[in-house]
């Protein structure tokens, strides 16, 4: 199915007004209400969307993707708004937004919503696409751009739709100190280890590092309640610059390709108890990572 087929010309607005998130969303919904047959409680929908965005803390980067699911909607409505000039919608946003793609999702259309959202994200993350779309003067011009791109809505979600491109990675010869810095600065629990050609050669977890500094015999004891003063971590401070990541990494527990369907990698992750899996291309070049929280955020709360 083509992405353009599920977009409604009447729900694309190139003259959205407002300088805040609430104002922009309200304006788009009021404009949509004039077109749609279904009555919309604009205030409630806007507050619901904002509450959801704040709860999930999804940072936007150039394009906002608010949505709300509810029984009051009888179908999937995708409302596109192009802002006259970029607006910083939330403090946490990576960049001001010049376009808003709002979705109102009925209970029956959750699946289609996820697929169309994935298609939209794939489409607008193409270099230059978002800037081009933001310049559209009319809905027809906007739709023409989408049509020309031949963007499609896939029949299923794949790894590429759920993954995030992670900037944090380590090289085999990096020191433990560098690894510990990365762990402490981000919320990653597993960091990919790449070779000089950006191929995935392993993964390292903070647990790997901690475990290597705890004597093996400690793990042989079922109960450590009696152990209060034993302190093996001084060694880490003393030796973190002398050891390299290569000696502490292990083979990636799970790697998938960008085209791997959602159900496949989700089941594999659950089955193996893996919290992070890495996405690699045919040459094992690192593409991105999928954490359990990404599945929850993008699929269940996307």
């Amino acid at each position, binding site marked *: 199915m083509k992405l353009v087929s599920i977009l409604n010309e009447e729900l694309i607005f190139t003259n959205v007004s407002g300088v805040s998130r609430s104002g922009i969303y309200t304006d788009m919904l009021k404009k949509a209400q004039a077109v749609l047959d279904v009555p919309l409680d604009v205030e409630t929908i806007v507050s619901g969307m904002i509450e959801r965005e704040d709860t999930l803390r999804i940072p936007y980067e150039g394009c906002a993707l608010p949505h709300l699911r509810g029984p009051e909607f009888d179908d999937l409505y995708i409302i596109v708004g192009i802002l006259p000039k970029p607006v910083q919608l939330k403090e946490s946003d990576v960049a001001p937004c010049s376009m808003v793609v709002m979705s109102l999702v009925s209970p029956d259309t959750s699946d289609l919503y996820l697929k169309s959202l994935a298609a939209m994200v794939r489409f607008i993350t193409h270099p230059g696409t978002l800037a081009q779309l933001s310049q559209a003067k009319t809905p027809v011009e906007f739709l023409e751009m989408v049509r020309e791109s031949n963007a499609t809505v896939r029949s299923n979600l794949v790894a590429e739709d759920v993954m995030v491109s992670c900037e944090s990675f380590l090289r085999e010869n990096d020191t433990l100190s560098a690894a510990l810095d990365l762990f402490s600065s981000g919320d990653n629990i597993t960091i990919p280890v790449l070779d000089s050609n950006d191929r995935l050669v392993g993964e390292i977890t903070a647990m790997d590092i901690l475990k290597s500094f705890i*004597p093996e*015999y400690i793990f042989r004891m*079922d109960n450590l*309640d*009696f*152990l209060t003063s*034993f302190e093996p971590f001084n060694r880490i401070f003393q030796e973190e610059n002398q050891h390299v990541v290569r000696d502490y990494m292990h083979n990636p527990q799970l790697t998938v390709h960008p085209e791997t369907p959602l159900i496949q990698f989700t089941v594999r992750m659950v089955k193996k108890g893996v919290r992070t899996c890495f996405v690699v291309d045919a040459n094992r070049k690192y593409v991105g990572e999928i954490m359990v929280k990404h599945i929850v955020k993008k699929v269940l709360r996307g």
Partner: protein
Amino acid sequence: MEPSTFIFWFGTVVFVGTYALIASEKIHKTVAALLGAVLMMLVILPGPGHHGGGESVPAPVVQTEQISPAAASLNQLERNLSHANSNAMRNADRYSRLDTFSRYSNFDVVFTLAGMMLLVNLLSGTGLFQFVAIKCAKLAKGLPIRTMILLVLATALLSAFLDNVTTILLVAPVTLLVCSELGVPPIPFLMAETMASNIGGTATLIGDPPNLIIGSIANLNFMAFLVNLAPFIIVLTIIYCIILWAYYSRRMHVTVEKRALIMEIDENAAITDRGNLIRGGIVMILTIVGFLIHGAVGLQPCVVAMAGAALALCICKVDVDHALEKIEWSTLFFFMALFILVCGAEFCGLMEKIGSLLNLMEGWPVPVVVLLIMWVSALAAAIMNNVSFTAAMVTVVAAFISGNSAFSGSSACRDLLWWGLALAVCLGGNASLVGAAANLVTVGIADKNGHQVTFGQFLRYGIPVTVGSMMLASIYILVRYYTVCI
């Protein structure tokens, strides 16, 4: 080639090859034993619906019922004979329908081990053994030599009632912790404990697997082991501790500060499940009582062990599946395969040939025969692992006893040989790294914690202990001979 010649050589090659594979540790010992056992079953050992290459195995000797003297009349005698014969036929028929594993595996040994493994796993989950080890260090007030001696005594005592490997697995981690806190090298402690576990295990039927095998073949019960071996083992352990004291007391010193660290460890916090400790403890005591009386009431050790395990699983609040998973299945399969392998060697005539070597000692003085068998057995146990050696040796010794008038005619001499063999294989296991399973486990734990013990280093600890303990054991056997057998 005659079929019987082929069978002999095939069985010999399989038997020797498997033992060589086990000793070399090139592949997992259980896999090696299973391969050997399967080859024996495929080619040599007959089973139901399969007659192998040899003649069929006769049914085990069926004890005919004792005819009461009161049954004086001929009719009564005939009725008794007829009843005994029908029982014998029924038993023979049942035996013929047994599957191959049941025929050739010694399930008395296997189930005794399994039952004790279950019981010990339940108890270890309560923190009891960590408590004991920490208590030893605290009773010693952190003084290294005292700590070593108390840990050695605790290990020897625990090993008398638990499997040696299990004892080491429970005591070694706490030992490493204590040594780390005291800042003393852990290897002397670990070596001393390993030797103590092999020595302590010699005291009882269930303390060391070779004893279980000997007890099962020689029909010696728990009480017999306790009465005949435990007193000597107590003396040996005391002498061992004195030697440790003399050797190490001036070689280890720790500061007051480090000793204080040990005194701050709260041993009571090691107990995680008081309820299960009490319930499991009661079951363990009942099981030991069961072992003490099993000979008198005519129960096999495996029935006692499995009864204890079943009772513990019933009254202790544990996840039964998890408890069963923790059984060392690899060890049990190793034993099962080993018994089949030995049966194969027996069936092909290899054991008879080896036994004929022992027949060269026909007419020799009993003490010389016993001591010679003891020292050769100790050496062989050290080279090829005491369990593997014992599994084969008991068959040879049993055949030798039945064919040698000095031993078959005197139960005291016969038992003396069994006690000598038990002492030799258990104490001989101390000599080398591969001599006993506990040795390998200790060295493995030490290695994983950055303390490597090479084969040669182990010999430096093992040979003096083995030679010393074997000399004392020889004296004990001689004393017994001149006081009991003559």
